[in-house]
């Protein structure tokens, strides 16, 4: 259930298993199965639609397509502020902005993408380095990645 902190290149190289819904696993890692991820990158492409926001997040190792649905999955009730929070998050997605994105890994038309759960703006550029190192640390200590694969 955890959001695996990954670099874009790693995420784009996950193995997609044709289950329903599709499941994902990371090569050469244990536990290999993942369903959620957290990445950090710069918005390099943005496509705004009434029901969703589609953007590309570039972290220097690759570009990950992300989709932020603007309508909640369940019909909103009066006491649920989710629509407002989603709109607030959508406003954070701007070209050139450094974002930290969490979400589920999904496949759309054969292409891997992140269905965004939340978006956070990271103002400090050092956060990119920190995120990369954190990815390395977790890969090394948690996923059991071989030392040579750390790059």
């Amino acid at each position, binding site marked *: 259930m955890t959001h695996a902190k990954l670099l874009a290149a790693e995420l784009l190289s996950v193995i997609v298993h044709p289950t329903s819904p599709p499941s994902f696993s990371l090569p050469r890692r244990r536990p290999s199965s993942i369903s959620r991820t957290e990445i950090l990158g710069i918005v390099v492409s943005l496509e705004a639609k009434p029901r969703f926001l589609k953007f590309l997040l570039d972290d220097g190792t690759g570009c990950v397509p992300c989709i932020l649905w603007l309508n909640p999955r369940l019909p909103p009730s009066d006491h649920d502020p989710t629509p407002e929070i989603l709109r607030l998050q959508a406003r954070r997605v701007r070209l050139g902005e450094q974002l930290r994105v969490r979400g589920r890994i999904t496949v759309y038309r054969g292409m891997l993408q992140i269905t965004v759960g939340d978006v956070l703006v990271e103002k400090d550029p050092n956060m990119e380095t920190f995120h990369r*190192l954190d990815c*390395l640390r977790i890969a090394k200590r948690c996923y059991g990645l071989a030392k040579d694969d750390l790059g």
Partner: protein
Amino acid sequence: METLGSFSLSDLLRLSRPVTGTASLNPASSPPLKRIKLDQNLLLNPSLSRKSFTPISLPVLLVGTVNFFSEASSHRTGSCLNHCLSFSDSSATICCYIVDFDPRVIGQEIHVMAWNYLPIKQGEGQGVLEIIQWRFSSPDTAPLRGFSLSLESAQDSGVKASSFAFGLVKSVSLTFTLPIENGKTGEMGDSVGFLAELLTCMCDKCAKMRPSNEKSGLHRFTESKVVYFIRPTHKWRPVVAKLVGKVMYLWGLKKRLVVVGKESYVMLVSTIKTKVSLCDSVVSDLPTDHSKRGAYRGIVTGIYLHGAVIELDKKVWLLIHDTLLVPHHSLRIGATVSVRDFHFVHANFAWTKVIIVGTCVMTSFCIDSFAVSDTKVLVKTEEKSALGTFVESLNLSAKFWILLSVSCFKYKFRAVLSDKELLGSINSAGLVQTYSSRSLPPDVFRPHNSMFMAYCNHDQCTYSSGHDQSKCKLIVPLSNFVGRCEELWISIQSEMSESDEVHCNNTCDGISYPGYRRRIIPSDDFGCILMGNIQACSSSGRLQLVDATGNIDVVIPDLPSDLSVQTIYEVKDYKVVLEGFGIEGDNSMYEFGEPLSCHAIFKRQTYRKRIHGLMLYVQFYLKDSVCLASPSRAPSNLPHSENHGPNHLLVISHKFPLTNKFPFNSAMSICSSLFAEALIFPCKFKRSENGELIQLGKFQDALDFSKRDHKKASEKGPWLAPCSLASRNGGVSATTLCQFNVDSSNYMVSKSLARILLEFKCENFFSYQMLRIGGYYFLNCSEGFNPTRVCKCWEKGGSFVVTGNTLQSLSLSFSDDVNQKEPSGTSSDELVLLKSLSELHEIVDLKSVSQGITKLLPPSQVLSVSSCLQHMFHQNRNLYGSTDLGEQRLAQGDLISVCGDVEYFHDNDCDSVSLTASKCLKIPNPRGNNICIHLADDNQMVVIRGNLSRKLFPIGFGVGASATFHRLLLTCSSNRKEKLLLTPVTYIEITSVRKVKTNRGPNQQMFKVDSLIESLCHLPPLGLFSDLHNKDSKVTRFCCRILTLNVLVLESCMIGSSPAYKIPLAGFVLDDGSALCNCWTDNDLASTLLSLRDICSSFFSSDFSSLERAPKRLLASGLCHCSDDYSNYKNTVGYYLDHILKKHHKVIVKNHGVSLDICQDLLFHSGSGKVFSILEERLLNYIILSSCHGPTFIATGLVMDASATKQFDAYISESAVLRGCMQNIWIREVACVDPLKDAFNLILDLKNG
């Protein structure tokens, strides 16, 4: 059977060239002899050089008789008498040397089967025959009995000679001459002879003169006896010397008392009845004393200084105490020699370690095989100079050093000093001797005895086996020194490559440029002394230390004006600077062959600077150097000046740099003339008879104030300012008090100063180098002094050609020079190249009177980088720009001077990211490269651009140089951006250089990061939730985010009389990317995680407008004491929560959702039992959702055991239990992520493990 040719010696002499011949490889065969005439046609290859042995094309044999030279052979040298036998046939007699010597050969006719012949002197009918293989002419002529020597003609004389000696020949001295006094007549004469030491046996039979020769084991040769072979037996020396190690009978000796000086010795002396024979049946080995003496056999690899130094096997240095010891004819490169009874020394000199083998009077020297390629016969200088005597008085290592120094001195100064000046003569000491006697420590001198005394007292010989001569430094030929520096530079590059040291790649405008390296090496690391003349190079204008072998650029911070270019300076204390960009490619292509090795010095190997892009120079202070004698034949450059006296006072306002007029011909001077601009002061001085300076005339006379309309001046009148002047001329310092009458009002005086252009021709570039911008100098005017006439120098726009020592530096100080940056000079990383003016001048305290005089000086405009930037910012941009001159644009702007540190420089033409040093450096651009210089101070940096040829770089210009740029053009680019440009008149002055910092490779970089982390923080490493199962219970830091909420308990409370809320418990699910974890906390930390102090989003502000009834009450309650605090507080989430809790007293929120994705199955429990309004639920939902979308934070917590978590069971919903079994931690601290600090922490974590 093949016939054998035979020819006469006269044929050989006539041929007069090195010839080699052989009869047969099988000496047993005896083909018939045929008389032939030797001429060029018989040579195998007559066209071969006359300096190499030419073989004879057919088998030849030489027939002749071997004998001693008679005394009548006056033309024989001392060496011949000591080593050579004569070989004669009916036609001629020549020297011969036999390798497999049999003493029975004396007086016998032999056939020489294999031989070399060398003419000794061309055209004089002398030569030497080197006999490699021989046999007696026929079995009949071979002596049947053993070897015996006697003077046959004198056997019947009536001389009584009854003494006898039987013993082992231990050593044989050289033939020497001893002045003697005839005991009977009292007449003085010379005794020619040699000494031989015999180890005799003391057994009874030997004592009774009946030595037994049957059993050698009966004899113990222990007792030393000296036999003095005097004329006429002295000619036996070549044979007796070859009997060392053999047992010998001697009859017909006389026991005599020999008195030499105050010493007397009882010894056996030869007579005409003396007879020598060998005792072949008794064999004994010479006793060896390894601690003192030994034996060595090796191949001659070098012969230097007329045979005084012989190199064996390229590793051992044989010092010959007396060159007569060696057979001059056959000692050639390639010969194999044996040395016995020598002294052995390991000498540790400052620059190298050598093995020295020193001969003495006891040493025997033998040629074992002849050289086959070298035909150069050693020429012995017979007369002994004062230097030779001096050298003999030294111990071995000092002797070696001085011989090396002789070689260096001759090599370095052969062009300017004669041999007599260098080496002295028989009676007078030369430069080498005076220098050496001053430099050598007193303990290297040893008493010197005559050969007789030395031989007899040899046991007292004081040579020791090891010498620490670290004070003896090499007087290095400059070309070898340059070679050594280049060798060092290459090794530095290799070391950097091996240690992964990455040179600082710098970027400019996004382009990466190669790194720059600088090494400052002190003189102690070289162990060398620099010596030479100081001259200004006519092609580069730079100051150089010069000798006959080469030159090296020098920087002398205390350069005086009275330095003589002919004087030889000795520089012991210096620093060598090597700098440049890294070398690309294979370093092994540079082979230097140890430029400072003794071999290279003796052999005079020359080196040329080969590495382009390496800037190499030496910095030293003249005050630390010693002035050696000037060459007598050098013309003096000091004319006159006593009569004239310095006439004008100058201050240098600018120096114009070199210009590259002849770029395509490096042989030509770069510049025919150099120029400097000066302001000439309106006063005249004259040197009095006693050396003092006398001021002649007054300022107001020259300036003619009366013609000027200055109110203030007329009101106050001329101002009298005392000023102290001191000049240096020929080492004489004179000080006098002068009076300047100046106008105290303003810059009027300085404006009225005449500007003069000083021109320096090639031969006076030295004077140009001595000049400093802002420095004061006296100018000797060629017109001399005329009090009634205004000098031409005063005419504005005039020029003056500087010759000789026209300019004299002047110590003049008015006030502290605030604009000159003081070079620290104390840091070991920094090297001063130029002293500040205030340091250069002798400071005279004139502060009390300086106010008026300071205004005489041209306003100093050297800006720091920061000041320059301010200046650029404040300047009116419209003033700058460019003027169109046809197609060319002429930049306009101010000329300013800026000082700072050169951070980096690079060619601006290079536009490739993969730029290499070779691209930047190795392609010469005659017009000068478009260069970009980054100049910085502690705070700011400016970029200076312009064209500058690398040939014209001042010494020291490079990264890490502290530089002053005079007359830079401050102008505007087309986009109205200010820029600094180099102009053709820009003069760059380098004050100091410092080591260039380098980046290190990965390992070293880690180390630097480690130290940074250690210095910045002592944070424990970050943990992972996935590791909690394996961990002991201890406080750990986690980098995580909130995923969802488990439970939240909110209660209202009263703080004093004010309502408030508290959070008794908050449970979250945290996610750190490795696993999920339940975390628990309360109150403040929970409030932080829920962001209750954050400003509420605007859409809530409108929603909760109905709750806007609180202000008055809150203000009244004192929760908010001022309007600002209150307005801040009312925008927070906590403010609205406060309202909710006032109604419900206690709120419990539980998450009943099974999925962790969406936090929507929250159940709210009210403590008061009241129903939650939509707005209230909405707010609570908002608080929780916002916290779940919150930022990454660092949580510090402790793992809770099962008993500790039981207390929360009541709060945890069944769904939460269903969500899986997770670890529980109690959070003690929450902090924001500091990306930089925590990234360092992660690097350390990754490195460790």
